[in-house]
């Protein structure tokens, strides 16, 4: 029997055995409230897993752990929760906002400590990792009340045991972004192959622009470049198994990726390791850079209205004609439930809501850099960028999540971040680099 997870359970556990039976029911009726009375017998025997009652009266407070700490997304989430509370008069939502980076960093401690009932997270291996470690709650119930999600999205929300652990909310594609006005001014054309990109970059340099903006101070943005190159050089299937630790990092295929990257590095903004992605995005916004490979959240650095309308993107150019260029990266953000929520019924209701078109409409309106996952979401209010993102994702044949969501988190953060930063500092020693990555990968994936 594990420790009590809620105040009510704790109080119930104080009732001595001798007071069982009818009189216990009477006692508990006052302490726990009518709603949980049906579950009272299971309280003292189960391990707290299904402490919430089944359907019906979901009341009380649901706590939400939110990593949307920037002003605009934070307000968007508040609006969503306000709408939820309006539609469900018995429930209130208490939002616990933590700085975006800190939230991710502390996730292990957070989930094992006292997490909120519902928390924001990402799809992919990162989600399955926690589900398989028994740190996430089964939300198959919530999925029963969600319409409008494609099978692909449901698949990416499913854990290894076939149950759902995730409810998608929004996603955003990674692509090469540029300002239409800058391209028009210099007469640039969107490159379709890597050679065209290289030529365009040379032209941009002559025109005084930085061809490709780049900022890897935080360590993760450069992973996007690796992913795009790997998808183009070796294909989606190879990329997925490489991320799963099933391929050798010192193979010729991986070396080819780094070689290609080394060839492109001169076109990238120098001194990238001291520059945050926000600063690199500002270089694009100020018209000093030609293109920037980032997720569509780059739009957050542009003012709403004319400036954001000036933003456009194209997919990473083709490198190998046999592979083409229709594999993309579109990380999915969403919500999960903690293993032992204090208010499971309320949490499931909240999860069904955030997966619904109504909730997503609010989010995408407030933050036009992301698009809704629900097909029924109102796309009429989409900006040009959002409409193009929808098309972009629809026409892609395969969608990856991003390196730090597709592979083991300890591998991504303690091995790949330093390794990629090392590569950027010294692109010549590729053999040494991949050998080092492979050794570390073997050590980690075998543990």
């Amino acid at each position, binding site marked *: 029997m594990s*420790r*009590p*997870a809620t*105040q009510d359970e*704790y109080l119930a556990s104080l009732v001595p055995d001798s007071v069982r039976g009818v009189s216990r029911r009477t006692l508990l009726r006052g302490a726990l409230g009518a709603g949980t009375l049906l579950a009272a017998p299971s309280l003292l025997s189960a391990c707290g897993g299904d402490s919430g009652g089944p359907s019906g009266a979901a009341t009380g407070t649901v706590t939400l752990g939110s990593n949307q*700490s*920037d002003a605009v997304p934070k307000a968007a989430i508040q609006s969503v929760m306000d709408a939820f509370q309006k539609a469900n008069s018995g429930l209130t939502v208490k939002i*616990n*906002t*933590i*700085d*975006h*980076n*800190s939230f991710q960093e*502390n996730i292990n*401690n*957070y989930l*094992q*400590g*006292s997490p909120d009932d519902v928390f924001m997270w990402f799809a992919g291996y990162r989600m399955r990792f926690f589900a398989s470690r028994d740190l996430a709650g089964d939300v198959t119930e919530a999925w029963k009340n969600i319409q409008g999600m494609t099978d692909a999205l449901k698949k990416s929300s499913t854990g290894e045991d076939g149950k759902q652990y995730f409810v998608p909310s929004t996603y955003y594609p990674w692509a090469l972004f540029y300002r239409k006005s800058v391209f028009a001014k210099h007469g640039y054309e969107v490159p379709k192959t890597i050679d065209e990109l290289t030529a365009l970059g040379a032209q941009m340099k002559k025109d005084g622009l930085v061809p490709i903006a780049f900022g890897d101070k935080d360590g993760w943005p450069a992973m996007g470049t690796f992913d795009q190159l790997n998808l183009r050089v070796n294909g989606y299937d190879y990329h997925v198994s490489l991320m799963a630790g099933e391929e050798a990092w010192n193979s010729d295929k991986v070396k080819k990726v780094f070689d290609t990257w080394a060839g492109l590095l001169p076109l990238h903004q120098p001194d990238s390791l001291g520059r*945050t992605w*926000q*600063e690199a995005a*500002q270089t694009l916004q100020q018209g000093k850079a030609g293109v920037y490979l980032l997720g569509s959240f780059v739009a957050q650095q542009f003012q709403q209205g004319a400036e954001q309308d000036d933003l456009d993107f194209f997919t990473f150019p083709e490198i190998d004609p046999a592979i083409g260029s229709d594999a993309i990266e579109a990380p999915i953000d969403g919500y999960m439930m903690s293993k032992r929520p204090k208010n499971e019924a309320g949490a499931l209701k909240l999860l069904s809501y955030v997966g619904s078109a109504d909730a997503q409409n609010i989010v995408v309106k407030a933050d036009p850099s992301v698009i809704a996952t629900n097909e029924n979401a109102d796309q009429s209010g989409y900006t040009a960028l959002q409409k193009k993102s929808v098309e972009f994702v629809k026409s892609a044949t395969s969608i990856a999540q991003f390196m730090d969501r597709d592979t083991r988190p300890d591998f991504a953060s303690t091995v790949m971040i330093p390794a990629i930063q090392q590569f950027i500092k010294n692109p010549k020693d590729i053999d040494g680099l991949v050998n080092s990555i492979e050794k570390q990968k073997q050590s980690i994936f075998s543990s």
Partner: protein
Amino acid sequence: MTAQATPTAAPGKSPVQARRPRPAGKRESHRMVQLFLAAMALLWIFPVLYAVINSFRDYAYTAEHGYFSWGGFTLQNYKDSWEQANFSQTMVNSAIITIPAVLLTLFLSCCIAFVVARFSFRFNLALLALFTAANLLPPQSLLIPVYRMFRAIEVPFWFSESGTLLNSYWGLIAVNVAFQTGFCAFVLSNYMKALPRELYESAVVDGAGVLRQFFQITLPLCRPPLAALATLQVTWIYNEFYWATVLLQSGDKFPVTSSLNNLRGEFFTDNNLVAAGSVVVALPTLIIFFVLQKQFVAGLTLGATKG
């Protein structure tokens, strides 16, 4: 947390340092030394002055005219940084953590110091060594066991809303107390040892027990070192960064210094906002520094001048 030294003085020193007479020909070299010291002092205080001045300047103005211009003064940076960093809440959090931690530390240190100074038990030295060494260990080495222990300790919900010591102020206070007690105990024991034995002897003759001796004789006489240590401890625990970052999980519980962690991304693009934020965070310690300077210095150097 900083390691401390309490050097002992050479014997037979007079409590008042008389001004040493200066021979005439030394004026020149004295002038040079003074100039050098003045230059050094200016150099040292410059970064803080720079931060203070820039905190009052409008970002748009400095972006346009550069930092050597004069003008564009505003209080807006303070308002902005106060809101964005949520200082009103984090300052309160800092107070909630610092004040009990300091009081507990001083009290527990007095207890240990009293025993070690008053009685000659054989374990005295070992005990002091245990405490002093604890102050010097790197906190990174202790994180995970402390974290798991706290998570496993269940406490009533009125004590900590998470049900355990994790993410609770009390857990954080306990860790701070454990770390700081060593240094304070050492300093206090030095001081208490210098208290004359006759005081205790007469008390024992009067039939006073240990408790009475402690509260009525020792503690009142320890006001100077206690004031000094209190000043130091408030500064150190307020400045403490690591434990608060790793032991607290709710965004609204972070104290001021740890909240600096959260400001990195947004703030680093606006220098004047960084300046204003820094000044706000430094303000409590600066106030203590200027008002209670003597105590602060005394705390750091207690034991060097016996008297």
